[in-house]
């Protein structure tokens, strides 16, 4: 197909119609900043004390291994800002979970800055952000 202005406009309109339709059908999801702000509250934020292990790039966003390691944390929250639902998973650790480490597999809709937050017993929140490239989105 020759790429003309007409075909480009038609494709663009069709794409927007496709995106707009399901978006209207869903109830409003809080955006990533709201999810992050709700978790942090007015706690002091620091950038140490948490590690977020995920690949730099993946071909397939349907199944991405992610490891969050936050020694001492009471609770961790993982956020994918480019996903339809921003909060992906939160984990509360009991007294036996002494390493405060969790591994799981998540879906990623596209390339994005994944955020991990950890609530510490001293009232601070540790925050770690890591970029990941995703070739094929896993939220379709």
């Amino acid at each position: 197909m020759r790429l003309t202005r007409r075909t480009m406009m038609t494709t663009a309109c069709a794409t927007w119609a496709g995106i707009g339709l399901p978006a209207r059908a869903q109830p409003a999801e809080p955006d990533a900043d709201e999810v992050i702000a709700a978790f942090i509250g007015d706690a002091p934020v620091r950038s140490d004390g948490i590690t977020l292990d995920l690949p730099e790039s993946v071909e397939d966003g349907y199944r991405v291994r992610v490891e969050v390691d936050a020694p001492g944390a009471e609770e961790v929250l993982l956020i994918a800002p480019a996903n339809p639902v921003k909060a992906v998973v939160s984990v509360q650790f009991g007294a036996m979970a002494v390493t405060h480490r969790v591994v799981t597999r998540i879906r990623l809709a596209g390339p994005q800055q994944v955020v991990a937050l950890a609530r510490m017993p001293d009232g601070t929140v540790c925050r770690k952000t890591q970029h990941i490239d995703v070739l094929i989105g896993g939220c379709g």
Partner: protein
Amino acid sequence: MATGVKTRIKLPDTAGAGDVITIKTQITHQMETGHRLDSAGVPLPRSIIHRLHCTFDGETVVDVDLRPGISTNPFFEFDAQVTRSGVFQFAWHDDDGAVYTAAKAISVT
């Protein structure tokens, strides 16, 4: 209730007192996000496992709140320090109200 749901637990049968053991869990579940459309363009309703609660003789080890961003067949790996023999219990809570459970004992010497 979803059919053919299988749970899988991996943790050692025995451990020394004070050892930190690794627990791996998986459940077969489609984790329908609620964002996909069927062939007629109608959104498929959300149907996911939304909670995994692991306890050891009634004490919480981890309590996981799952959202649609978790992949099909949810997998979780975490650690626990064991000081005595007991039973690890696992409960997966489905959106449809079903609760799938599994248990595995560990002998601590």
